[in-house]
């Protein structure tokens, strides 16, 4: 087996793009290799030791903090997944995605020319057409949660059809949910087959596989589910739907990104990571970025390989940016609502 160091970044095939190219060639997946899956060991206390100490090891202040927070915005899937979403509400969300930070703050920070937007807008299928229209003329993709989100327990043919409809409606990214029962019963073949079918249904749209870490029961299951999803061709692996009792945490995130690193080291294919749910504070966003930088390298701090699934995070980031500019602590009502 060839061992690839992350810092060597040797692309596997000549067709694979260079590291500097932000449009990563898609992970084609591979056959399910149970040898890899069986050999996965994750020690929970060791994971927690790392995440507990990481916050103390890395911190950014002043200009660095401001720059990192802007980067966090570009990695954000600005999300609304509520039963009472309406076209009007989604249009407002998209407007915020296009202009996430007040212009005067961007100018004060000297970054007005960077055309900062969020990484994507994430909605339910019914809101896709609205979002696509609202974001016309931008590079902001629309992501649709799919496959019977959040439980994923509707009939398989409908779940696949849901993907196809969302793609037809213009979604560029599909956030699918896996069948947790396959993980809980260690039926890895079934999980693999399911995700592979979802990937096929997506066509050109990117697949973000939500493994719902809060419902998988153990560190090792989280790791194995992540690996199976990557083998089945996921472009991203994502922690949570946002509706589990526990959503994204640093430990589960570390478990997942380390699997993505292993997958890259073994195959040369880059798979992205998306923590979702419960990330509401700017300092959490900084901690996630530091973890990605430390564990995966700088490329995984960019939106083609890293996203936050968040609905409330942006407000806190805006306030922190204003504090950096003015030196005064800011208030929510000073920033345009999303």
């Amino acid at each position, binding site marked *: 087996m060839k061992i690839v*160091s*992350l810092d060597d970044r040797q692309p596997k095939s000549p067709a694979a793009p260079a590291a500097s190219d932000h449009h990563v060639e898609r992970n084609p997946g591979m056959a399910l290799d149970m040898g890899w899956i069986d050999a996965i060991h994750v020690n929970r206390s*060791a994971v927690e030791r790392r995440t507990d100490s990481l916050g*103390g090891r890395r911190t*950014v*202040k002043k*200009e*660095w903090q401001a720059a*990192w927070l802007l980067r966090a915005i570009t990695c954000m899937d600005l999300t609304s997944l509520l039963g009472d979403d309406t076209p009007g509400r989604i249009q407002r969300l998209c407007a915020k995605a296009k202009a996430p930070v007040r212009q005067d703050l961007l100018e004060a920070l000297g970054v007005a020319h960077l055309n900062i937007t969020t990484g994507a807008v994430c909605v339910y299928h019914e809101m896709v057409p609205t979002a696509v229209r609202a974001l016309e003329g931008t590079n902001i993709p629309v992501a649709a949660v799919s496959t019977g989100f959040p439980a994923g327990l509707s009939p398989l043919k409908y779940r696949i059809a849901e993907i196809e409809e969302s793609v037809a409606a213009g979604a560029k990214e599909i956030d699918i949910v896996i069948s947790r029962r396959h993980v809980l019963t260690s039926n890895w073949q079934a999980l693999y087959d399911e995700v592979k079918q979802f990937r096929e249904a997506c066509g050109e749209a990117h697949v973000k596989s939500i493994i719902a870490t809060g419902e998988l029961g153990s560190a090792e299951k989280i790791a194995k589910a992540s690996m199976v999803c990557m083998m089945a061709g996921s472009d991203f692996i994502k922690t949570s739907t946002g509706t589990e009792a526990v959503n994204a945490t640093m430990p589960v995130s570390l478990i997942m990104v380390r699997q993505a690193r292993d997958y890259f080291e073994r195959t040369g294919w880059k798979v992205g990571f998306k923590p979702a749910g419960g990330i509401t504070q700017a300092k959490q966003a900084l901690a996630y970025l530091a973890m990605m930088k430390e564990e995966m390298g*700088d490329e995984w701090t960019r939106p083609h390989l890293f996203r936050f699934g968040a609905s409330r995070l942006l407000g806190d980031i805006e306030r922190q940016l204003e504090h950096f500019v003015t030196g005064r602590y800011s208030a929510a009502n000073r920033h345009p609502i999303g």
Partner: protein
Amino acid sequence: MNRVAEIFETMEYGPAPEASDKVRAWLKSHAAGFGHYIGGEWVKPSDGQYMEACNPANDEMLGTFAVGSKADVDRAVAAAEAALPGWAGASGHERAKVLYAIARLVQKTSRFLAVLESLDNGKPIRETRDIDVPLVARHFYYHAGWAQLLAREEPDREPVGVVGQVIPWNFPLLMLAWKIAPALACGNTVVLKPAEHTSLTALYFAELCHEAGVPPGVVNIVTGPGSTGQHIVDHPGIAKLAFTGSTGVGRMIRAATAGSGKKLSLELGGKSPFIVLEDADLDGAVEGLVDAIWFNQGEVCCAGSRLLVEEGAAERLIAKIKTRLSHFRIGDPLDKAIDMGSLAAPIQKTRVSGLVEQAVKEGATLWQPQVSCPTIGAFYPPSLLTDVGSSNIAWREEIFGPVLSVMTFRTLTEAAQLANNSRYGLAAAIWSDNINRALELAGEIKAGVVWVNTANQFDAACPFGGYRESGFGREGGREGLEEYLKPKNEWLDKGSPLIAAPARVADKAGAHPGVDRTPKNYIGGKQTRPDGANTLEILDYQGRLAARVGEGNRKDIRDAVEAAFNAASWERSAAHLRAQILFYIGENLDTRADEFEHRLATLTGASAKDAKREVQASVERLFAYAGWADKYEANVHAPPSRQLAVSVHEPLGVVGLVCPDNAPLLSFVSMFAPALAMGCRSVVIPSERYPLLATDFYQVLETSDVPGGVVNIVTGERDLLAKTLAEHDNVDGVWYHGSAEGSAMVEKASTGNLKRTWVNNGKARDWYSTSAGEGRQFLHNATQVKTIWVPYGG
């Protein structure tokens, strides 16, 4: 602010400095130089000498502090002696209040202490802030609790007296806490010398002691170089010495204090293995390595400096280590976001780089990450040595720097062999996601601390200390208190353990009717003739020839130690089996009570009543240790983390037992039985005057299912044989009951492998007493504590 746009692209880290203005103001207020803290006052050095405190990260001079002369040390010891009665006599609550106040003050000044420590030592503020200082506070809290509880928990023991403490520069304040907190809790007073590279936090701590209401003279801080430490070591007023530092200096202290009667604990060097099995979480193991060898710049006595990885996982693990190190940040110790700061002094950088160069000359391949490393100051990059043979200097010698050496293994057995192939035995880490394999290995490693799936965890409640040349004595937990307490009335005020033979009187012809008996040595379960084919005459109490016993020599000791060493399976025997055998020995002795009574009476002149008493006491003692065999249990500790720390008592190994002449049967039994009970194999040198009680006894052993080699008996000249035992590098401990000179000789001769010694300094013990002649102290000396940390709970 285009800087922001630039960083947005590069995603670089920026500086995150911790403020040091308060510490600098304090240093400025002491610009005239720090004195010693003696008797609750700041005292100028008697000969006016000062030395400089430097920041090793940038060579900045931080201040000057006093060089302790002999007169200064005399003054400090006198102050400690004067304070002793009051402090030892204070109620537990009084002492607890003072320790509690110190703990609180450490917390109240935690950031100041963290910054000062980082400036003086070069270690990252992240570590002083998150690890060193919180552990210091924890140590004082924990021992405040012991101070409160001690009177009822340890009613039979008392403080040792004035304690001299010499500490290293790698964890200046934490080592101070490890030393001072238990000493004070137990009612001792202290004279402490911080390391010359790092004296400043100890001096600030003295100010805290003042504020906390520590009575004058209870804590005395004397600063200076090694010569100041030497004055403390040599001072006759010191009752106990506690030293943490290099094995070389530890050996010198052992030799210097031989025969002084000073109690000694040594926490010395290590070359600790970090063992990664194929089924480990390899990413977790890499972080474990960061904690093990790149924590505190590798300047950690228990650093996991030898990586042993199962061959099939080696390539992946090494690749992962390299990737991880490529993300390392080395720089200003006061920056909150760096991984490694500066070594503690320029001389350490010279030493580390010299050892690494030597390792490369010996065939190792050096890898260092391409990360920026300051050129000013004593910075040294994290380093990985592969292609390291087991004879490579980097595999054998303590480097005390951020240097990891790697070797592979094939089986668990081989992992244990390679791990144990060292003169040291301080700590080990084992990584596996299979608890059976991990704990199997944990039982095989010769080390005082074993971390399973973690590394470098410390807590005040958990004993820390080494096997072999990593020293003796434990710090932390109840075990740590052992070092600062002594049994009340251990020794008799008068009387000698030695009995001189009377003048030889001529035998009448035919004085020995019956068949001739030939007492031999007893080695490896066999009666063996002495190597030199010489015998010694043993006289009875009237001076008549009672028998000839073998005159053992060096080679008999060699053979006996070899037999004992080869009986290693005794260490694994079940405690229940050892209990059964001890009961059985008691039964068989009782069966032959008449014979032993007769021997005692005719040989020693004991009355029939006294002879009977000694034999019965011996039977009882055997029963007592049969009882103890499966009841001397260690503790399960509850550190404040998701860990279970389990201490086990492991047999010390091969012990030499040198017996006195008084109560020759009972003392012989009282020496070998606890060793046997705890799983040790022993080489016993019986009473030189009355060896026949021991030579009679091997028949009892033979009929009691004692496996060959577990108890070996060599008769002869006590001190001659004891010297060979004490010098023998395959002997792990010597208990000596003989003359004061012999005691000194044993302690001095023990320095070769720093074996544990327990000597009587010429004093006599009341072997009939169940407190002085039996019990926990004997068991303590037959065992060593291994603390095993395992993740526990949700």
